[in-house]
């Protein structure tokens, strides 16, 4: 996957030189380890800033909403699905974007790796299948497969579903993964146990809204949590307010979430916020045979009515 960068740069250079796009959105090296940053490249000279490795977990579709320029965008499987969602939701036009598709082999889980390290990690060196981390007085080599982000480990759409150029041959899709083991576990709990489970899950949330900000779906001009007239949800650290925020955030993503993992990756507290959206994703798959962002041809389940709706009350 590391070798993709030459092709990414070559395509970006060409697109900019031929004025096919006004900018290319890709990644540059971050100021802290394992955190590559989004990067808007507007000139051919800047193309060399672009990087590609296993720390490109941010979802770049987040930077497309309501843009008016012509944009080249580097897109992994999940990013491409969020681009499809943006197009369906009229946040960007298909002919405005040149999608530079990246067949993805998974991003690494910074929370997990940090937890494994004895001290602050100062350097991370990767090869195609190993991750070497170094810090004061320690050095470790990890198997990349073992430290993938959870959503990457269970991903079944690694190849971009929509693209104009592909930087390499498609990778093999995973088929033998169990995507919903954790959700089934929660579903099986009693109401009291569920209550306690979520109380515990959210107990460290500081309401920084990092999870919301990282998500490409959260593009409302004023988010319901920021609105003060009317104030839909209390702004305090009270657990009812925190819970309201999380459940509503998840519901706003119902039928749209691609499980890209950007929210979970962004959380400074390491809260597994995908557990909320994954339940809705599972329901959409089981009830409506729907996976978000796979096609421009179909309308998402929440803006269509079907006479065979699985729920009795609406039929």
């Amino acid at each position, binding site marked *: 996957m590391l070798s993709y960068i030459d092709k990414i740069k070559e395509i970006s250079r060409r697109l900019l030189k031929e004025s096919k796009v006004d900018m290319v959105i890709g990644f540059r090296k971050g100021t802290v380890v394992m955190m590559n940053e989004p990067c808007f490249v507007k000139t051919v000279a800047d193309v060399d800033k672009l990087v590609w490795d296993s720390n490109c977990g941010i979802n770049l579709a987040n930077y497309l909403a309501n843009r008016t320029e012509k944009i080249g965008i580097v897109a992994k499987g999940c990013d491409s699905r969020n681009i499809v969602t943006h197009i369906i939701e009229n946040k960007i036009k298909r002919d405005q974007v040149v999608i530079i598709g990246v067949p993805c082999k998974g991003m690494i889980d910074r929370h997990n790796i940090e937890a494994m390290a004895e001290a602050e990690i100062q350097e991370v060196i990767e090869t195609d299948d190993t991750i070497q981390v170094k810090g004061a007085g320690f050095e470790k080599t990890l198997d990349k497969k073992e430290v993938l982000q959870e959503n990457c480990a269970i991903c079944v759409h690694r190849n971009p579903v929509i693209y104009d150029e592909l930087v390499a041959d498609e990778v093999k899709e995973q088929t033998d993964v169990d995507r919903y083991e954790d959700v089934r576990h929660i579903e099986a709990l009693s109401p009291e146990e569920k*209550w306690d489970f979520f109380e515990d899950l959210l107990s460290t949330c500081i309401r920084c809204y990092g999870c919301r900000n990282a998500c490409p779906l959260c593009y409302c001009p004023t988010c319901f949590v920021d609105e003060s007239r009317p104030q839909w949800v209390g702004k305090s650290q*009270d657990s*009812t307010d925190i*819970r309201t925020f999380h459940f509503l955030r998840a519901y706003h993503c119902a039928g749209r979430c691609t499980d890209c993992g950007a929210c979970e990756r962004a959380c400074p507290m390491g809260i597994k916020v995908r557990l909320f959206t994954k339940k809705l994703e599972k329901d959409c798959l089981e009830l409506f045979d729907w996976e978000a962002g796979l096609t421009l041809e179909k309308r998402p389940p929440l803006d269509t009515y079907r006479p065979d709706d699985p729920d009795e*009350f609406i039929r």
Partner: protein
Amino acid sequence: MGIEPGRLQFSWISSAESTKFVEVVNEITTVIKALGPHENFVKREASIA
């Protein structure tokens, strides 16, 4: 999220179906009264020790 079954219900009632509305409201109130007050999802004033 840990709400007891029955406490949250959905119905589809047209503005012309006033009798259905009354029926549904009565039915739901009975179910919920039987469940008693919900203790969890309540925001309490901060208590000072």
